[in-house]
């Protein structure tokens, strides 16, 4: 009962994970939860048993003894948690490097180079700006497409985001992707994910950024590639002027 409440067996009360990285994080999350639950239960049972077994009524003749410094005990309770922590540190290393350090790469002329960002995310008080490359295919040029509070990305592909802040510290969070990245003004950060299926989820700001923090959320639409291409084409048409003398 207690274990059930501490760690519900199904993804710990979080929404269903939409990416492989999310699955790994769930796996770590659940593992640590169960470990903590087992330790809590075990130490609780031992404590209860001691209270019951060495009760004064049950042992009227025995007197409590005061002592300190038990080297053997101290070594045991230092080594076991240390072992657990070292184990966790190594066990999660791959997940950390995949999610935060090794940006996905693409092969260009037989050479693996870091994948370019699909879009630029600018956080501001209180909303999200999403800048997509325009017809020239480059970000931060004058023909960038720009939309507020709606981000659309293709499913089943590595997506790299470039994150920047216009004012204060914000944090880009998509619970379904188990993705959370603080955005610090003046810094350019990159974040990436690979969503396995189409979905419509929320983007939240998870850093208290001012009075309007509560309204700072946006829609994330994960769509199949053809639909993404169509959406970009529509956005391009909507944001470009009608040209007079163009064939």
């Amino acid at each position, binding site marked *: 009962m207690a274990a059930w409440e501490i760690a519900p067996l199904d993804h710990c009360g979080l929404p269903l994970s939409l990416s492989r990285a999310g699955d790994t994080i769930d796996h770590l999350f659940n593992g640590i939860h169960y470990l903590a639950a087992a330790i809590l239960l075990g130490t609780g049972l031992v404590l209860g048993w001691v209270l019951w077994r060495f009760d004064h009524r049950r042992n009227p003749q025995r007197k409590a003894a005061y002592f300190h410094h038990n080297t053997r005990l101290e070594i045991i309770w230092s080594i076991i948690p240390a072992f657990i922590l070292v184990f966790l540190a190594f066990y999660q290393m791959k997940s950390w490097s995949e999610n935060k350090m090794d940006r996905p790469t693409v092969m260009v002329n037989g050479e693996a180079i870091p994948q370019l960002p699909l879009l630029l995310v600018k956080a501001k008080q209180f909303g999200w700006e999403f800048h997509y490359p*325009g017809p*020239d295919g480059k970000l931060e040029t004058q023909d960038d497409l720009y939309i*507020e*509070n709606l981000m659309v990305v293709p499913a089943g592909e590595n997506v790299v985001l470039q994150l920047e802040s216009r004012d204060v510290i914000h944090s880009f969070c998509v619970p379904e992707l188990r993705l959370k990245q603080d955005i610090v003004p003046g810094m350019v950060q990159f974040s990436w994910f690979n969503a396995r299926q189409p979905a419509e989820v929320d983007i939240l700001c998870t850093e208290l950024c001012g009075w309007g923090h509560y309204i700072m*959320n946006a*829609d994330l639409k994960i769509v199949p590639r053809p639909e993404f291409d169509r959406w970009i084409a529509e956005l391009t048409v909507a*944001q470009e002027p009608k*040209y*007079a003398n*163009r064939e």
Partner: protein
Amino acid sequence: MSLRFIILLLSLIVCFSAGCQKTPAPEFRLNAVELLKQERLNLPAGQHFDPSYRLEIGTLLHSLFGTPNEPRFPMFAGDEDPAQDILSLENLGMAAGPVNRDPAGKPNGLYRKHCAQCHGVSGDGRGPTAEFLNPYPRDFRLGKFKFKSTPLRQPPTNQDLRNLLVNGIPGTAMPSFRRLPDAELQALVDYVKYLTIRGQYERYLISELASLDGQPLLDLDLIKVSFAGTAPTEKARAKFADQAFTIVGEGLFEGIVYRWLKLDKKSTPIPPAPAAVAATDVAHLELVNQGRELFYGKGNCLQCHGAVGMGDGQVGNFDDWTNEWIKTSGVDPNQPATYQEFTAAGVLPPRSIRPRNLHVSMFRGGNHPNDLYLRIANGIEGTPMPSSATLTPDEIWAMVAYVRALPFQQAAVTVKPVNTQTISK
């Protein structure tokens, strides 16, 4: 029962019942700034209007437009009621009132949920957060909107107001409300129109009354009778409104409501752009340089936007919302002591309006070529940015190309030395 127990019980009762009393329903705030301004304009120094002025204005507005909880909109006789083309009463009901949901799950009080904290319950731009924001939130009551597709002195179209809600205004505290359903957006648009028309009418009334040299505009006997110690009855209000409407209704209709009709036909047409506006076009640089010539020449943009477009040219101007009261005699924006009375009436300390820094690639009315075309062609209502009567559409497109290329000019535009002598003049 010990004394201590009784005290504990009493204090618990006090704690639990605190906050139980009903907060009074919010009221529209009278435009005290306009009243004060008209007093300064029409009366000898130190004198004030008769208190019956406030009563008259308040009662008339109440009977025509209702309260924040129960908005009304003046309806006109005849089959073709123009009011229907401007807003729907059903939408007003959805946006007004306290934040709530009706039994069917339809939301109420959208304006107070999303807008009132900055724009204020009366739409006067004096919500609780207003003084902490830069720029200040918009005061709708002047009836002026900056970012719209219609020419100067025309109200914005329905679509213009919707676009502002959907996209927000970059560079200001106005966020995007893209996530709201369509019906809720339209309800808010209608409510903004309602507050605007109400505010415009209020200003109109105040100035009409003020110009009568202390003579009341209406026969006040009706309200005097019903106000003898008690609140006016609904019947007295309705009678008063009837009488008032026949006297000033025509002015309302002609002067304010009529301008809000058939606006979609009044949008400035955007002619097709030359292909060179696109950065990928071979002739792009040529067009950008043409725009540059216009920026320093015919367009005279450098006067405000500065020698290199950093927004550091003429920076001492004020917008119309500030000019409204700051032009009153005796007010000096640099000396707070001279405008204390206005601050007490509800204005916030004046701030000069900054011309846009064109190197940031963030434009409040939108970055897209069409948005920029409208800004240059129509100007920006309520600000020193003028409309360009002398520029041809092709010249405007050239300026659009230049303004879009400016933030990226290191690579795109060859920097010619600017004649500093013309700038210093």
